[in-house]
């Protein structure tokens, strides 16, 4: 059974992510009264980009190519560290939560460096924003992880994330509610969604993530888009463990349940994107400080 779960875990991790982007786009189209692109459009886009050639800026070095590749490697490894649905993570050990958090740091280091490699001012702006906002979202993530560690009594992500299922009590309800709000904001920020960043914007000055990848094209761009969707899946799965800790205990029911949950989360993100406008860039730190405060107060409530 574990082998089957392992295969399913890897398959979901590799194949599902672009569908989430499709669901978000479809939801936004529905809100806008449009038909919208097909649900599978992100897959077609990725396939098309993979077939294309590539333009490299003359100023770039190997860092420009390393950025997308290392980002993809880190998010995939992060995906192997978390339990999906009711099933254990393929790689689990005490303290893997810190590796999980720092893998995103590694991805950020290389994404932002790759952007600076082009020597473009726009991409510099994107990098500056990315590293700045991370300084607020990273502590928020650690507060949330500390709450989960305390609630579950473990430093292994598998146990921590499945902990709320078993140990759900009135004492921990309030902290968990607070950190799930904080985590949701962190999720929106880290995956570059509205209200922090607009992946569909067309003005370079207002972008964060899209500004950093302006010069990537062809297969490299497909790697970037794919890695971004995997990141959405990974962080979304972590959030689901906190806000929807349900399971049937049967394999053939739990996998479909997880699929429904994660696609539902994508729809919720789509709704948030449809009903909100992007914040002014100088207001984003306030939102992230809010996330930090939610998670921090969750922690204080728990240990008081």
């Amino acid at each position, binding site marked *: 059974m574990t082998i089957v779960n392992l295969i399913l875990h890897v398959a979901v991790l590799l194949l599902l992510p672009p569908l989430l982007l499709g669901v978000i786009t479809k939801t936004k189209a529905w809100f806008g009264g449009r038909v919208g692109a097909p649900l599978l459009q992100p897959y077609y886009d990725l396939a098309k980009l993979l077939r294309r050639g590539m333009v490299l800026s003359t100023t770039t070095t190997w860092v420009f190519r390393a950025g997308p590749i290392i980002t993809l490697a880190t998010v995939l490894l992060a995906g192997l560290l978390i339990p999906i649905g009711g099933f254990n993570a393929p790689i689990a050990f005490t303290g893997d939560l810190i590796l999980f958090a720092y893998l995103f*740091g590694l991805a950020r280091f290389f994404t932002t460096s790759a952007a600076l490699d082009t020597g473009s001012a726009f991409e510099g702006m994107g*990098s500056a924003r990315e590293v700045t906002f991370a300084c607020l979202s990273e502590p928020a993530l650690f507060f949330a992880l500390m709450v989960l560690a305390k609630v579950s009594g473990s430093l292994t992500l598998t146990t921590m994330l499945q902990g709320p299922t078993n140990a759900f009590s009135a004492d921990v309800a309030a902290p968990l509610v607070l950190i799930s709000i904080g985590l949701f904001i962190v999720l929106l920020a880290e995956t570059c969604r509205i209200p922090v960043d607009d992946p569909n914007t067309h003005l370079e000055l207002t972008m964060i993530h899209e500004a950093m990848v302006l010069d990537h094209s062809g297969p490299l761009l497909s790697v970037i888009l794919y890695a971004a969707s995997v990141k959405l899946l990974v962080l979304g799965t972590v959030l689901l463990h906190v806000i929807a800790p349900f399971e049937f205990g049967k394999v053939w029911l739990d996998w479909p349940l997880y699929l429904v949950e994660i696609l539902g989360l994508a729809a919720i993100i789509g709704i948030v994107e449809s009903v909100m406008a992007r914040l002014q860039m100088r207001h984003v730190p306030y939102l992230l400080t809010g996330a930090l405060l939610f998670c921090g107060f969750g922690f204080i409530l728990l240990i008081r």
Partner: protein
Amino acid sequence: MNVLFLLLIAIVLLGFSGVPGCLLSARSAAGQRVATALMAAGSLLGLACVAGILCAGSAPSLSLAWGFQQSRFAVAVDPLSAWFLIPVFIVPMLGSVYGLGYWKQAEHPANGRRLGLFFGLLAAAMALVVIARDGVLFLIAWEVMALAAYFAATAEDDKAEVRRAGWIYLIATHIGTLFLLALFALWRHATGSFALEAGHSFPAEAATTLFVLALIGFGFKAGLMPLHVWLPGAHANAPSHVSAVMSGVMLKMGVYGIVRMTALLPVGAVWWGPVLLAVGAATSVAGIAFAIGQRDLKRLLAYSSIENIGIIAMGLGLALLGREQHHAEWVLLGLGGALLHVWNHSLFKSLLFFNAGAVIHAAQTRDIDQMGGLAKRLPRVMALFVVGAAAICALPPLNGFASEWLLYVGLFRTLGLGGEAGAPAVALAAVALAMTGALAVACFVKVLGAVFLGTPRSEAGGHAHEPEAVMLMPMAALACGCVVIGLFPLGVMPLVAAAFQTWASHPAPLSVAASVPLKSLSVAGLALVGLAAALFLSLKLILRTKRVRQGVTWDCGYARPTGRMQYTGSSLGNSLVELTSFLLWPKHFRTALRGHFPRPSAFKSLVPDTVLDRLVMPLFRTTGRYLPKLRVLQQGQTHVYVLYILIVMIVLLVWGGMGS
């Protein structure tokens, strides 16, 4: 023959390595080569001795009378000393090799010989500090170290800036030594001898006083905030290989002092650990925040050293708390993380200072915002810099991550998991550490981007060239160390366990591997490397059949971008400087635009050191302004001085009479 004698011979070799050069002509390269050979011989002999001692599991000691009253020439090597000796023997040796290319005797006839002399003396003094077991001997070695570092760091003393930085360093280090004098005097008073041996019992107040004196005295050397004032200037103005030794090893002597004193003192008050933890957390966050604001590459690296010292202090704080509360695991993880970070920082910070030296050589400036595009000119230096930068940001799978991971696990343990007693407030330090990590990524992305990536911003950068092999080899060796410790941290854990045993005098030996799964960390690190390599290869395969064109960077359709249009390091760090402006107090200079046709305008921003430039210097200036008034007392006439003595005697007599 006693292994300690061999070790002392090694130290003497280091100490005298620069002497032959002083006897040769000012332009002769032979002296420098002899110095490097002697350094290498001494260091390798020293490393062999340390390896022998560690393998035998012995702790040899030696105590000779040497003419000082109540003091003996006492030296010993226990696992703690051995741990700190290893970087002392490795980094200066590599620095000396690097110096062959970086500070050629023929190009620096005025100060090359002096630099060689004090460089060796600095290494020897540090080795002696680590093995000294007598208060007086320790202080002598400490003072030799401080002065040797002063003369080595001020090699270019024809520049006013260098003299000023050296002066501040000299004052700061002597204020620190003053506290250490008090520390050892009090130690002598409390224990009856200068011998630095554990097992004494102290009254609680005496132990606390000793701890506070050690924290301040050694804190000056280590650079704990706000005692760091000397550090940025001295590191920025020293030759790069001296900066590497100062930052990579000499700061660790301050750490060693704190580790040694806390090992000698009995289990202290409950607040020792939390105070050190809080100081460490504040130092690390503030250190890296200041680093982001710097434009001078070496000042930036110096502030990042302060940050790393803060991280080490956090580990020691956790260990102290664990010792007081009888949590062996906290002690193991805190001390283990701190000690491993001592090694790691000496590896990657020396690497980064060596890189900085090569960059400054090539670009002819220390100003980050004048550089750019050096990756094309110095590809090897850049690749090594990426390793060092990723390691210092504690990114997996490099060594910085391994030590911070131990510390994180230790801090998370204080949450009190699974019903065991905890101190959850202490876990807040983990959040400070996370913030430090995120800020460090911002800081080093700024350096990497502004120095190496993009296009050159000035003329000099365009003509830069790769440094010679003698400069590249030490860097490559250090980078290898970063990778190996990062992938296989388990390999050094027996040494950590032995040091833990010495420090905590724990009855039963504890193994780090048993309490945390370092093997899994290695597996995850290797998986990451494998995954990235596989993806690289597949991308290569995909691109083989595709057309890859070269073009100009996209700039909104503007086809002729120039180097000056790039985002500079200062712009990259600006939003973070603004976020932390309550701490950094950045200064902005701008000329106001007036009229319909304003004149050309300029803008400049600067992040001065809050403690030095806004507190210490004004204080010193004010003191200098008002205290000269006291000079009226200084008449230069002997009978007036005798009168002063008479007055003081009368006052004392009256005071004494009132007391009885």
